[in-house]
């Protein structure tokens, strides 16, 4: 049973229950209403309605899982960073569960704070930037399956959407555009510099990243996440394409804009860069979404290189997937709190002079492995 049939069954059962009540209500009322009650009941029980509602339930489940993971990620980040710098990290809010509730407390605080729009800001762009940023990041979740039967893009037959990996990367790459909108419309020199830096960074790191992803597509022979993961049943792609995995991780860090490559929101030089003018829950959304993008990055690395949900059958498939995503995230966080921020020229040098040739080399390795017939 996959996620779609599960939610289809739930909706079917709910519709049956509600229809019983609906027809009982219709029997109580005068007979003139009979046709209307019949039409509504028949529409509710129709296959199209139940399918749409089932997809909505799927989306709800996946988004809730993603948000819980985001809370976990923020907690892991703070706790891990604290232990790395020899202090406790969050401790008192949620004392029994290691300070886990601190994120919720911070969220409530951000909700209560005032949202200020600068007087000289471009109001439409200022409002639209966060919406595009958050929306595109959530959309990138849509095609990433947590297991063979556990994803939004699975239908009743169990096959995923063709080209689901391409869609995920497309949505993942929209964010710098919205960052540029935010930076421009805030009408502030720091935000503008942050936005333009983000654009430059995206330009130089999107290409090596997609080249490594292309090598994975070449090895798997498909654009579909399910088939890519199935192709890694024997050997994870991280082993033959180790070079590509490293390049992918570095590009991922740059795409998610975390620490060695967080030039767009450099705290010391640009006072939080493009988020300078955002206050209250808008900033909270930015922060939450940056961790969500960390989760998406971990999920992408897991699905493309680390064998997805493959593992000993002792643990269910989605849990395997999440464990691997968490490990990738922890390694990224480890790098984040160890390494200082690079300069702009160093950033572009690393992107174009180091990662680009390495990605080409990786593509060459993938092509030769495929030609030799080993995969």
């Amino acid at each position, binding site marked *: 049973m996959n996620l779609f049939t599960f939610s289809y069954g739930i909706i079917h059962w709910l519709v049956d229950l509600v229809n019983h009540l609906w027809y009982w209500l219709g029997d109580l009322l005068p007979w003139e209403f009979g046709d209307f009650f019949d039409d509504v009941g028949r529409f509710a029980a129709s296959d199209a309605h139940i399918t749409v509602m089932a997809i909505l339930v799927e989306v709800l489940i996946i988004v809730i899982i993603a948000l819980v993971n985001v809370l976990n990620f923020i907690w892991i980040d703070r706790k*891990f960073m*604290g*232990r*790395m*710098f*020899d*202090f*406790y990290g969050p*401790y008192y809010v949620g004392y029994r569960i290691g300070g886990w509730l601190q994120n919720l407390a911070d969220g409530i605080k951000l909700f209560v704070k005032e949202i200020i729009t600068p007087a000289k800001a471009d109001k439409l762009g200022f409002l639209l930037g966060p919406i595009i940023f958050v929306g595109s990041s959530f959309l990138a979740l849509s095609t990433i399956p947590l297991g063979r039967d556990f994803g939004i893009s699975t239908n009743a037959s169990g096959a995923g959407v063709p080209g689901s990996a391409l869609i995920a990367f497309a949505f993942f790459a929209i964010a710098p555009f919205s960052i540029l909108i935010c930076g421009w419309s805030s009408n502030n020199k720091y935000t503008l510099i942050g936005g333009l830096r983000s654009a430059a960074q995206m330009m130089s790191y999107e290409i090596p990243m997609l080249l490594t992803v292309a090598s994975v597509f070449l090895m798997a022979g498909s654009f579909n996440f399910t088939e890519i993961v199935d192709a890694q049943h024997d050997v994870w792609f991280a082993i033959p394409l180790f070079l590509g995995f490293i390049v992918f991780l570095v590009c991922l860090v740059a795409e998610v804009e975390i620490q*060695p490559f967080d030039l767009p929101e450099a705290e010391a030089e640009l006072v939080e860069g493009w988020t300078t003018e955002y206050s209250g829950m808008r900033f909270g959304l930015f922060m939450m979404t940056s961790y969500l993008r960390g989760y998406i990055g971990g999920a992408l690395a897991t699905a493309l290189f680390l064998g997805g949900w493959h593992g000993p059958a002792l643990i269910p498939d989605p849990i395997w997937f999440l464990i691997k995503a968490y490990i990738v995230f922890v390694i990224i966080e*480890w*790098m984040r*709190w*160890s*390494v200082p921020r690079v300069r702009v020229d160093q950033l572009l040098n*690393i992107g174009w002079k*180091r990662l680009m040739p390495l990605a080409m080399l990786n593509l060459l390795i993938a092509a030769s492995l495929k030609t030799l017939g080993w995969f």
Partner: protein
Amino acid sequence: MPARKRLNSLGFVFRPMKRTGKQVWESLIVGKPNTVLYPYHKLNLPPTYRGKHTLDFKKCIGCANCVQICPNDCMWMEKLDDPELGKIERPGIDMGRCLFCGFCVEVCPTVALHETVEFELASGDRDKIRFGPKELRDDSYAERIVEERQKRAVPVLDLDKCTGCEKCAGECPEMCIAMMPIESVGKLKPEIALPKCTACEKCVVACPEKALTMKDMYESYFEMPEPKFILKNCTGCSACAKACPADAIYMMDMPGTERILKDGKKSKPKKRAVFVMEKCVGCGKCFRACKFQSIEMPGVKK
């Protein structure tokens, strides 16, 4: 100094990661972080920490040296009626003005004042951080801590018992006891040169009247002002002897000063003050008590 090993770009990433990984191993898996969770856990403070003061009522002699030396003028003497000790004067401290310099503790000649490790003194009310002597009182504190101050045993004279027999001066191996005549009294008084004294206790054993006793003296960082006595101004009123907290001043009769009264009887002889400098703590109370300019004390305010 040898040149540092050149790192490639991977080394720039992995070397810091190794360091932070070691830190995580130390603070998450093996041990605990370095932070002290303050309201629940507290640091073990050293015994020389300067916190709230305590006062040993039995050791304190009420000389007010601490009040005089306080640079912020935050101490005062309070008159008390203690059931054990009778009428006494003891210092109180305003913690709102105290700068915790520790001068009062250092100057105390009997080491009755101590600074504890207690530092949580904040209060919403200013009157609550003015500690009177009763709030500072802790008579057993000195027994619980290791005394940091240098102390040494020194023979101290009780002039009431002394007969001037010169046995102590004859016994002293260091020749530090000299018999000095007290002017216009006609008696001899042993004066002990304390820097030479080795605390051999031979003089104490030799004294037939048991006028010499060994006492612990604490060495002070501060120079002690000494009273200078001017005999011709003294009227023998004994105000200084009553004021002295250390019992270092004795009133002695001056023979040959009796006047013949109208009814033919002799009056009582005039008295004069005699100072035993081993006991003096240099507080200047005698100087302030004297109304006839008979005592001078350079360096002490009237």
